[in-house]
């Protein structure tokens, strides 16, 4: 008897991108605890509005319900998951075993990240693993696909994933970031999601640079929903590689308190429209961070309906 899942309710993000369609993905942040009700609500709300949902893996080094468990849940609910795998909490054995399991449960897309450092999270005394990092993780998956684990042993039944990675267009300095981008492609990355981008002109310049390095790899622009002047200030001061330009900060400041969320929605909708109209990149990755319920409104305002794309 085989338990391998081969039936899929939705096309994979690889199929969407290879068909030349603009990919629209969302993100699910699992809860701290076992009450999954709100998350299930978000999954049900998003599963037909976006092509796929990323599930964060103990995001910001904060312990939560696992990304792998949530990916399977999304699958069970008829959605398409992109499994985020970080290298902070698991060594190569644990990651390999998780990937074997994910494959048998029908997970087709994996986003490879190094993971935030331990001290930024809520288990500050924990030991960070970092047995490997994002580039080596991509290589490790490629090896698994070729039927070998990282100990060099042959697998009885391998895996096949659409492999993704992260790039930070606003990184300062940008040069080492671009070399790492290139290394990730060499290691097997087929698609990229960017860290949050706000300055579209700067993003266009980044895309030109990226396309010069490789014009085949898919790049999806990461957008994080703006919700208040305080959030913007916090991100500008504390989140590396994220920069909200003055004009957007002012737009948010000028909005009355009850209009702030709507302002954030309007800004993101405008940016998504621009990405599509100007054919800047291959897709968008929407990070609403706790406000997943407004994603359908963002898409509506942007005039994006994935069933008609």
């Amino acid at each position: 008897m085989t338990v391998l899942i081969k039936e899929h309710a939705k096309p994979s993000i690889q199929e969407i991108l290879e068909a030349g369609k603009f990919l629209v993905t969302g993100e699910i942040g699992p809860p701290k605890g076992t009450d999954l009700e709100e998350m299930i609500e978000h999954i049900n709300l998003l599963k037909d509005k976006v092509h796929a949902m990323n599930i964060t893996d103990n995001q910001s080094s904060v312990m939560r319900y696992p990304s792998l468990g949530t990916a399977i849940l999304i699958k069970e609910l008829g959605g398409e998951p992109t499994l985020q795998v970080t290298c902070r909490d698991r060594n190569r054995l644990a990651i390999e075993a998780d990937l074997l399991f994910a494959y048998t449960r029908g997970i087709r897309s994996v986003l490879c990240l190094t993971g935030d450092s331990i001290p930024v999270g809520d288990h500050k005394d924990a030991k960070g693993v970092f047995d490997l990092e994002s580039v080596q993780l991509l290589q490790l998956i490629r090896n698994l696909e070729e039927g070998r684990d990282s100990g060099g042993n042959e697998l009885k039944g391998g895996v096949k994933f659409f492999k993704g990675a992260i790039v930070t267009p606003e990184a300062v300095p940008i040069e080492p970031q671009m070399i790492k981008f290139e290394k990730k492609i060499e290691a097997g990355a087929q698609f990229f999601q960017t860290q949050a981008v706000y300055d579209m002109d700067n993003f266009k310049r980044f895309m030109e640079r990226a396309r010069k390095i490789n014009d085949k790899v898919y790049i999806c622009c990461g957008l994080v929903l703006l919700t208040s002047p305080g959030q913007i200030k916090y991100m500008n001061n504390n989140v590396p590689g994220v920069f909200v330009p003055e004009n957007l900060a002012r737009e948010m400041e000028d909005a009355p308190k009850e209009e702030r969320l709507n302002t954030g929605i309007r800004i993101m909708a405008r940016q998504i429209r621009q990405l599509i109209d100007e054919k800047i990149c291959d897709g968008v990755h929407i990070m609403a961070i706790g406000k997943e319920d407004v994603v359908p409104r963002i898409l509506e305002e942007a005039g994006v309906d994935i069933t008609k794309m």
Partner: protein
Amino acid sequence: MIITTSKPFEEVLKELEGEQKVFIVGCGSCATTCETGGEPQVAEMKAKLEAEGKTVTGTVVYEEVCHELNTKRKFRENKEAVEAAEGFLVMCCGAGVQSVREATDKPVHPACNTMFLGNIVRHGHFVEKCSLCGDCVLEDFGAICPVTRCHKGILNGPCGGTDEGKCETDKEKDCGWTLIYNQLEKMGKLDRFRRIYGLKNWQANMKPGRVIFERKGGGE
């Protein structure tokens, strides 16, 4: 140099609860430079313990408490005071504490926390640049160690937490990968940065580490 910091005196006192007579061991090497277990600190500890009503049967400060044979010799030289002691307070690194452990079966207590193998930047300012991984990669990275200088110890470039040359864990700390990038660029060796570095052998120094050199012929 092994960098140590002093444990709070209250913690030391707690360790010594139930032991009235104490022998203090200080180290003439690293702990002297760190000012955690040199002659002045040992004298100060003796005074503080006596003020708390303890009897200090003796003190000794010598080079390399981590040298086990040397430690045994020092204990023989101080036989009377050592035998009178109910416990030992060792004011140096964890290696020194365990060296004393080999010399006695009585209680042995650490007075310091052992931090890292450190470089001396200037008096009282130490930084970690090598984490003793047993598989030196400095040749590939412009003699700047990513295993140590990068908080995550990653081998293929900076993580997303780097910001204007600083680390996400501490804005006062340099991003090791920015240092490596700048160094390799200066040397015209960015090709080393571009090369994918495979999985590292973290068991090159399989804990607990053990090295035994074969004696070359001649001599004794």
